[in-house]
């Protein structure tokens, strides 16, 4: 069960449209290391984990990722608001526009649609947490790459906020991994799968 809050997690107020940069930032909506995949990954993995701390964190981080994809969508929406056909053609936004007009669609910067093959839910807490730690770093690198291309401070500000959250999530998932390992045989963490064999 979820409740909606009618506010963004961090404000997005962009006054200058920029469809070229929107096409890059949309990758954090539906790209391989984007927020949609992040949310689906954690919310899928949580059901079979036998540890309450891990189930709690996957639920709460998976929920926060939904707020992040809303921020990314708000950024893309504001960067492409009220564009004219001329602006669309000049900026190279025409290839997106022909399929989606100015609607929000989860895709990578390359134009590839979001797919569940970006994520894994393996049913083994050690395996899943390593995927999660890697995912947070991949998202952080993507935000670093975006920040090298974007100069508008109104866009950089919320992107920096999102980048910092990746680092906090990485720390928390690291703590989860330690909790899981503390519950296993320290001579051989992989002797059995606590989600399946226990």
């Amino acid at each position: 069960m979820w409740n909606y809050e009618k506010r963004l997690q961090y404000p997005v107020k962009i006054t200058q449209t920029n469809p070229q940069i929107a096409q890059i930032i949309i990758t954090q909506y539906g790209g391989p290391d984007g927020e949609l995949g992040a949310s689906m990954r954690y919310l899928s993995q949580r059901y079979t984990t036998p540890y309450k701390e891990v189930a709690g964190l996957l639920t709460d981080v998976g929920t926060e990722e939904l707020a992040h994809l809303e921020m990314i969508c708000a950024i893309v929406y504001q960067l492409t608001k009220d564009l004219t056909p001329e602006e669309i053609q000049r900026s190279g936004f025409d290839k997106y526009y022909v399929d989606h007009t100015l609607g929000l669609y989860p895709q990578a910067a390359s134009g590839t649609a979001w797919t569940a093959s970006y994520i894994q839910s393996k049913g083994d807490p050690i395996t899943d947490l390593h995927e999660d730690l890697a995912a947070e770093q991949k998202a952080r690198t993507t935000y670093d790459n975006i920040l090298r291309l974007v100069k508008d401070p109104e866009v950089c500000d919320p992107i920096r906020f999102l980048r910092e959250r990746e680092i906090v999530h990485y720390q928390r998932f690291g703590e989860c991994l330690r909790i899981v390992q503390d519950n296993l045989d320290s001579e051989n963490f992989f002797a059995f799968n606590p989600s399946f064999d226990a």
Partner: protein
Amino acid sequence: MNNQPNRREMLNTINELSFSVLDIQLFLDTHPCDEDALAYFQECSNARNQALKEYAQYYGPLTIDTATASCSERWSWINDPWPWQEGGC
């Protein structure tokens, strides 16, 4: 109307308190017995709930649980701008 609190300031307060609540929530998930963190969570969570109620009285509900706090004869949930729109939250 002069004693009506500033909308942007109220929103900033809600955003800051909500961020504190969420960040300490994640910390508590992996440190469930940390007494300082628990006390900080209580403090921020109470202040957030109060701020959400006050906001709803003046500017409409941000959550469905505060929809009754805004005294309106109409369904106010859809009235104010959505968060991604100009003038939204």
